[in-house]
């Protein structure tokens, strides 16, 4: 049925800000401008900017209507594998908004921000103890930025000893950021094959190691949701070849409190505070990606860092200000200031809430929930590594079971949308056909898992039994049907223009 408005009951259409607002409307009452002689040097703006303004009630309504077109963890399970969409505790939000954290400037004199520096030091201590690593760099702004920080330190460490290695080995199943980061640091990237069990092929990796290999980048647990049982042997072989082990810590949430990466022989690992430690994903950021370092890489950690002397904290911002030699080989500054303080507060709030005992339970429940999903679906879905034993925090399936139907992972994901769920991660990792990576996290109840399992089984069974055409057109019940992504890329429209201008141009 169609309506005059285009709305369908509570599913409300909403135009753009630019179609709602007016340049002379304003939702903020501002003080009058004191009369002074301009000191802008004659560089005042003359042309209009073209910004619409809205009153406060209009703005609240606009964004509330938009918000209702989003799926979110607050609404239901968000089983995106590798992304770790766990509940975001509201206490963390409250703590991050304390004026003593939210309303302080990064360049205030350090005597006025001792509590903030102490918080960073406390969080650093948690991260070091949870990983059994001696050093941590707090400033990287996201996982990929942390990865870059870690790989820069590895490159700097090789350069410092005059060792010009050229190659970084990355498993085929790695996140795309891994090869992108290694290439950015000037390395050629070579794949390491996986074995039939979905793990790094230790023999193949050993055979490739040599004096030209600078580092091996490993995700553990890996992106198939499996722990690398040979991790210590891998690290020993890498070190024997004079190279470093970089660990992508995206999946640390599976082992936090139960396994310390430092005990596995890694040299650097970023920790996504927005995954393991529950800081909100916010529709794609901001994240936060501190990096822990081994003793061998600690001298290369970036600036600035917090140093504690007795009860006083200082912020070491410049290499020439160093009095000891602990950071004199630093790779330098990664960001303008000191990192994602707002995320540090949230992450520490989460850690204090769970404690060392609760974090251990977090890993256990995350792994238990994933295995429950794996074993509840493996009779219908193809589960390529299920026979090798338990998974960690996420369960990997392929779309092989749909062979012959003409339907794929994409169709299944879109049908799941009509069932009221956000789909799992699709087509990643690249090592299995039509990958579906399901990560429930520890904050889902058994009832919630059962509901997802029921929907997945139902959709899969219908896809095997009913005409394919229905499924190629789903979703039917979402705010939008399938969107034309090809057209969007072929003829990109990235900003709004007044319709009259668009017509004139065409």
């Amino acid at each position: 049925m169609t309506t005059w408005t285009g709305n369908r009951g509570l599913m409300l259409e909403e135009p753009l800000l630019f179609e709602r607002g007016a340049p002379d409307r304003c939702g903020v009452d501002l003080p009058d401008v004191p009369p002074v002689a301009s000191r802008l040097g004659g560089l005042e703006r003359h042309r209009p900017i073209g910004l619409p303004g809205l009153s406060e009630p209009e703005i609240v309504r606009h964004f509330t209507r938009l918000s209702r077109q989003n799926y979110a963890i607050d609404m239901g399970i968000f089983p995106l594998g590798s992304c770790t969409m766990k509940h975001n505790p509201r206490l963390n939000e409250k703590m991050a908004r304390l004026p003593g954290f939210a309303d302080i400037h990064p360049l205030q004199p350090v005597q006025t921000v001792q509590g903030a520096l102490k918080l960073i030091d406390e969080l650093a201590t948690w991260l070091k103890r949870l990983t059994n690593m001696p050093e941590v760099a707090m400033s990287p702004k996201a996982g990929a930025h942390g990865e870059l920080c870690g790989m820069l330190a590895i490159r700097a460490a090789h350069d410092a000893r005059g060792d010009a290695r050229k190659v970084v080995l990355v498993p085929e199943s790695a996140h795309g950021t891994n090869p992108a980061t290694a290439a950015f640091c000037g390395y050629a990237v070579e794949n390491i094959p996986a074995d039939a069990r979905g793990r790094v092929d230790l023999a193949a990796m050993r055979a490739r190691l040599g004096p030209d290999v600078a580092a091996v980048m490993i995700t553990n647990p890996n992106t198939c949701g499996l722990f690398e049982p040979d991790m210590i042997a891998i690290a020993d072989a890498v070190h024997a070849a004079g190279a470093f082990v970089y660990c992508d810590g995206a999946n640390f949430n599976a082992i936090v409190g139960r396994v310390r990466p430092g005990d596995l022989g890694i040299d650097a690992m970023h920790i996504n505070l927005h995954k393991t430690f529950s800081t909100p994903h916010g529709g794609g950021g901001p994240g936060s990606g501190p990096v822990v370092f081994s003793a061998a890489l600690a001298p290369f950690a970036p600036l600035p860092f917090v140093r504690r002397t007795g009860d006083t904290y200082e912020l070491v911002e410049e290499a020439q200000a160093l009095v000891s030699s602990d950071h004199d080989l630093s790779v330098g500054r990664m960001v303008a200031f000191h990192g994602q303080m707002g995320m540090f507060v949230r992450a520490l709030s989460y850690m204090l809430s769970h404690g060392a005992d609760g974090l251990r339970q977090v890993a256990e429940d995350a792994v238990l929930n994933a295995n429950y999903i794996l074993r509840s679906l493996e009779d219908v879905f193809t589960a390529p590594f299920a026979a090798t034993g338990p998974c960690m925090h996420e369960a990997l399936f392929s779309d092989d079971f749909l062979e012959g139907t003409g339907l794929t992972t994409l169709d299944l994901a879109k049908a799941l949308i009509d069932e009221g769920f956000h789909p799992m991660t699709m087509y990643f990792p690249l090592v299995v056909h039509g990958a579906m990576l399901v990560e429930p996290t520890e904050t889902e109840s058994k009832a919630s898992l059962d509901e997802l399992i029921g929907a997945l089984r139902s959709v899969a069974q219908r896809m095997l039994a009913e005409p394919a055409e229905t499924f190629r057109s789903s979703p039917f019940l979402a705010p939008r049907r399938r969107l034309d992504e090809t057209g969007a890329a072929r003829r990109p429209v990235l900003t709004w223009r007044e319709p009259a201008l668009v017509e004139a141009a065409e």
Partner: protein
Amino acid sequence: MRYLPLTDSDRASMLRTIGAPDIDALFADVPAAARLDAPIAGLSHHMPEMLVERHLGALAAKNMTASGGPFFVGAGAYKHHVPATVDHVIQRGEFLTSYTPYQPEIAQGTLQYLYEFQTQVARLTGMEVANASMYDGSTAMTEAVFMARRVTRRKVARVSSGVHPHYINVLKTLTRFTDDEVATRTPDFTPDDDLAQLAAAVDGDTSCVVVQNPNVFGHVADLAPLASACHAAGALLIVVVTEVVSLGLVRSPGERGADIVVGEGQSIGNGLNFGGPYLGLFACREKHVRMMPGRLCGETVDADGRRGFVLTLSTREQHIRREKATSNICTNSGLCALAFTVHLGLLGEAGLRKLAAVNHARAVQLAERLAGIAGVEVVTRAFFNEFTLRLPVEARPVVRKLADRGVLGGVSLGRLYPGVRDLERGLVVAVTETATDADMDAFEDALDEVLA
């Protein structure tokens, strides 16, 4: 534990379904040498909300807040009043607890505000396109330098001495192992930029010239001659804006010939947060769009012909291109971009212009007052809401003494340029709409007293 829904009986029943005798069996792949049998030592155990609040509240209470007294600190991060509506909107669970919009049918809320954000940023900077945000201003600037290398296939980036020194340091770190060459120098303590020298230095190896405007001393310069020099030599002009409110009053970089505009968007919608999370802005000319880094949201239609939005041009990105990607960046600063869009939507054209005018007028007032203190000279001639003083003594200890008197009185050039003797008497002072007459009185009196 309040965040964990499973009960012991749930766990037992799920283990039966799985066919595992106990939870340890699920961790069987972990080498025995690395298995921990008990909670990690040296860390506290779980705490109720009340105790967490008490602990963190005590840490927060040790800090001197920007709103707690006279406050004039800037140099890349600015205190502005953020309307209550902004925080309300960004705390809606549908925004706060959603992910990157990989399933556009159920993420139109995020995608539409990103499209609105891109349009706002493009218009504000005077450019044709903008991306969906980056980590912060410093990383956005670095990405702009890399983009200029891709566009021009040249590798020398000439960076003005007026660019924030932290930004330059980030650029130096991230170009250590790339083919880029960064040419820059320490600034002189004069009211002028080095724009004329840069215009003279642009040559056939130059990929880009990077200037900040207003610069780190607060100086506002005419960029048009430099833009002409860049374009004559086939180089790109990258303009960095660290105080985005200035664009409400100062002519846009696009009007003045910029090819790429990057900036720190914190000033609109986002608090100081001790340095992060912040909001990197990135805008450029449409002809370079396929060379841009970062996420892009584009307009399209759905199967029923209705307008909708998707992430687009992702073939530039790491998850598709892997080692050949334009950048290794995966996330943006989505929620900070939302805060920006809400605040700027409330302000609108009229509000932003007025806000900028108030900032400028307050800064002019304070500059005139401080110039009256014996031995104090206002070095910056043309400025927006920030200017640099030359004090009769080293500024860094003065800042500490002002703080002892309850005044956060700016950023010393000694902190920004440690060890540079020529700059050590410089103090960068920022004034926004939040500064009251009483705040200015207190600053003037305290500075007078400290220098006496």
